[in-house]
């Protein structure tokens, strides 16, 4: 478990990071909490030649209230999010999601931006980011842009980020009524199924992670929603369900329905 050789630069501004990313392209990688990247490097599955450490950039780890939005810096750790008063008050679903990631050590290092950029199909945040209709703010050599959550996740470990872009923050609408429910995999404790539900009046938004190789909005559930939980039966409608040793497609589909039901009833 020794990574291949790499260079390391700790940058102090977003601009600096973007310039380096642009210059080194595929050979370089952003390093944030390191809790997905470093394990992959130790197994030599990932071999960047240059690590661009963004953890020292000031202003990227704040949590602020901007009108009806909560803006969370990409470098915020899971722990900071889980324990933030502001998040708990206006966006408790996110605090709940962050609080069930890994263990304390992982939560103290791993970041929101890192998790989203990594796009592990079993990671927790995507469900919540989707259900909240959050916006991912990314900055690249052509400046800053906003990516809707529903456009962000493209496939397994693949996002809408361009090679030279980094996530700087995520903008969430405040959520009064939402919750996240997770069925964890016994070994890794990642999500076999993670369901985020946000209720707004008669409508519901449902984000699901772990089930398909790309996290998704369960639109079939949303349109069948009648205030109860029977719509949960449509949790995997139109979705190609993943299969592995811990949960084959049949069982995973069943779990998705159970967890959508639980989230709708919570």
């Amino acid at each position, binding site marked *: *478990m*020794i990574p*291949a*050789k790499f260079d390391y630069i700790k940058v102090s501004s977003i601009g600096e990071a973007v310039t380096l990313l642009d210059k080194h392209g595929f050979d370089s990688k952003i390093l944030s909490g390191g809790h997905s990247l470093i394990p992959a490097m130790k*197994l*030599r599955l990932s071999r960047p030649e240059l690590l661009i450490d963004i953890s020292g950039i000031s202003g990227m780890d704040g949590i602020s209230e901007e009108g009806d939005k909560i803006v969370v810096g990409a470098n915020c750790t899971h722990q900071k999010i889980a324990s933030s008063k502001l998040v708990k008050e206006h966006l408790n679903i996110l605090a709940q999601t962050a609080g069930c990631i890994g263990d304390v050590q992982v939560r103290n290092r791993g970041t929101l931006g890192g998790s989203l950029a990594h796009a592990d199909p079993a990671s927790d945040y995507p469900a919540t980011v989707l259900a909240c209709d959050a916006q991912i703010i990314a900055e690249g050599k052509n400046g800053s842009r906003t990516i809707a959550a529903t456009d962000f996740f493209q496939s397994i470990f693949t996002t809408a980020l361009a090679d030279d872009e980094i996530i700087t923050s995520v903008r969430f609408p405040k959520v009064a009524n939402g919750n996240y429910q997770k*069925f964890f995999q*016994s*070994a*890794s404790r*990642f999500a076999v199924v993670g369901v985020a539900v946000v209720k707004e009046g008669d409508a519901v938004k449902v984000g699901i992670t772990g089930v398909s190789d790309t996290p998704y909005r369960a639109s079939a559930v949303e349109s069948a929603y009648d205030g109860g939980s029977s719509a949960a039966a449509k949790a995997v409608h139109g979705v190609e369900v993943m299969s592995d*040793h*811990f*949960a*084959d497609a049949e*069982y995973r589909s*069943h*779990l998705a329905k*159970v967890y959508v039901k639980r989230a709708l009833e919570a």
Partner: protein
Amino acid sequence: METFIGKPVKRREDARFLKGAGRYTDDIKLPKMTQAAFVRSPYAHAKILDVNIEDAQRGDGVVAVFTAQDGCGTFGVPCGWQVDFKNGETMREPQHPLLAKEKIKHVGEAVAIVIAETLEQARDAAELVKVDYEGLPAVTDPGKAMEPGAPLVHDQWSDNAAFDWCIGNDRTEVEAALASAHHVTEMEYRNQRLAPNAIEPRSYIADYDVNAGKWTLYTSTQNPHLIRLLLCAFVLGIPEHKVRVVSYDVGGGFGSKIYHYTEEALLTWASKEVGRPIKWTSDRSEAFLTDAHGRDHVVKSRMGFDKEGKIVAHLTDEYCAMGAYLSTFAPAVPTYLHGTLFQGVYTTPLIHLNVIAPFTHTVAVDAYRGAGRPEATYLLERMISKAAKEMDMDPAEIRFRNFIPPFDGVEQAGYQTQVALQYDSGNYEAVLKRGLEMLGYEDFRKSQIAARKNGKLLGVGISTYIEGCGIAPSAVVGSLGARAGLYEVGAVRVQPTGKVSVFTGSHSHGQGHETVFAQFVADKLGIAMDDVEIEHGDTDQVAFGMGTYGSRSLSVGGSAIIKSVEKILEKGAKIAAHKLEAAEEDLEYAEGKWTVKGTDKSISFGDVSLTAYVPHDYPEGLEPGLDFSSFYDPTNFTYPFGAHIAVVEVDSDTGRVVLKRFVACDDVGNVMNPMIVDGQIQGGVVQGIGQALLEEVIYDESGQMTSGSYMDYAMPRADDVPMIETDRTVTPCPHNPLGVKGAGEAGAIGSTPAVVNAVVDALSHLGVTDIQMPLSPQRVWKAMNNGR
């Protein structure tokens, strides 16, 4: 005067462990030390067409690269136990080469070793070794390995069997009893393969001193002397007196560090070649692929009962995987450590076990916490609970009807089983009664009915186990194929000031010997615990030793120390009598001094010690000094037993099992330190729960391990288990001086079937009769739904 036996004395060793100040092998840094990395096969079965090391040799910092083409290519590590075929054919024992030469036989097998200045350089250069493989089909399931046409692990034999074996009564007699039994319970399942997962990975440093012509091997082993013997006499052919094996602190073994591994021998050989110390520490991925695994039995069993629920006959056939090569104790595990426990705690009159032990394209299987006894207990305890359900009996009641009646091994003789062993002492009814009481069994059954009405799936599972430990009488194991004796060595050296150094051949890797051994030595000598120091793990300090496994340290190693303590006191009495001008018979020894009976004339242990080393006024003809070493060879195994009871709740939507309670009432004989015994039981129970609910090594069809990391191999965590409630009954061992039986493995032996029985109980009304371990949510959910 303060005494220590039976008290929960805090563990001395914990101060350094908790401060991160343990002396583990990987902590040692020798001058000029190099680092090794291995090139390992990604194939389970392949021809090696070519190994090209030229680029690697030119790598930065590379000191040497060796393959099987070098001098080490002729060596192989031996097996320590021989079990021949039933028809008399000798056990098939393939050479286990230090580096693979022509063929690969399991994923992770080493092809080359790269030695470099730094670990990073060694790893980088290892990637430069180019190996050309021709992949071949593999077989990893022990049952499938015996099917006609299965890929052969070793071409020189016509099939994959390493040996076959049976024990117990005549098979036809057992078959006949089953045919006429009132009820027959049947089960087919796999006792799945487990990875031991000691927290400290294996780590070795070999250091050849050119000037002295001596080797030192620092190794994370459970038995340094045995490693030295195997390494010198059976692998490298180097003089044993020129080799020192050191094993200071070891971070857990659970069996996996008993064995002599190829890497130990290869590093020792290579350190002379390069003339420098070489370190290698396994990483977690390598540990999954190369540490000996446990279990992996494919089982088919039938048990016959009469109308009253008494067992009349038991017949089992098993395929027990050996892996690609025979590890040090491997053949003993599914045979003499397994079949000999098929009597359990029951009066079963007819028993037959037949074992076929195939090679598979996997890493070796060897003893893992419990070694054969967890597999035996799982079988018996699942079968009897299943039978109770089928015969509509209470699982506690059916056990009471079958128990061997109490016997203390003193007034009443030991119990002769149908499967070779004679139990020392036991009271199985008492331990189950106490377990049921701890749980509140009657009340639980009532609440279970109520819970079911509310749609809750609650279940209770019982397991009443026995195990054989304190291995073992040397002559007995010798007649059963062991290539070693299984005595232990204990030396007591009294320093002139009366301070005591104890040297033991037992090895502590988490068990707390430094505390427990000091407790009883202090008590027997009537001195303070602080005046006793326990030394272990260095072949230059301790005369010899057979190491720690099979819960043998206290019953065998402790007894050897007691023998030396007795010799000290005997000689001390001679000196005391001389100084007190009294006859030896008139002296009594208590509280650290010899007193002339009925007087206040006495001499302290310290004064006698000083006299022994300053023998001016001294008994004539008596040698100076106070220093004795003893070998203790036990007269029998010891037989701890107990009752474990689990309560579970199953989530009806997801199949996830939540353990609500776990009660462990054990009888480990006399208890030296109840806190340590509780810890051993609790740790063992959690490991057993791990097997029941979580752990499984999976090799796919091509022989790839798909569970080779903690992302995929589920270890039990603190929040997976409830507080383990422990209590004990005490039935002393009649044949060793401390009356102790051993507690290291009991937890892992008793617990697994209790948990599985509980889950099956929770789901029985849904038609569930058995679920394959580990009881993952998916498996439980599927079982519930097919049962509907």
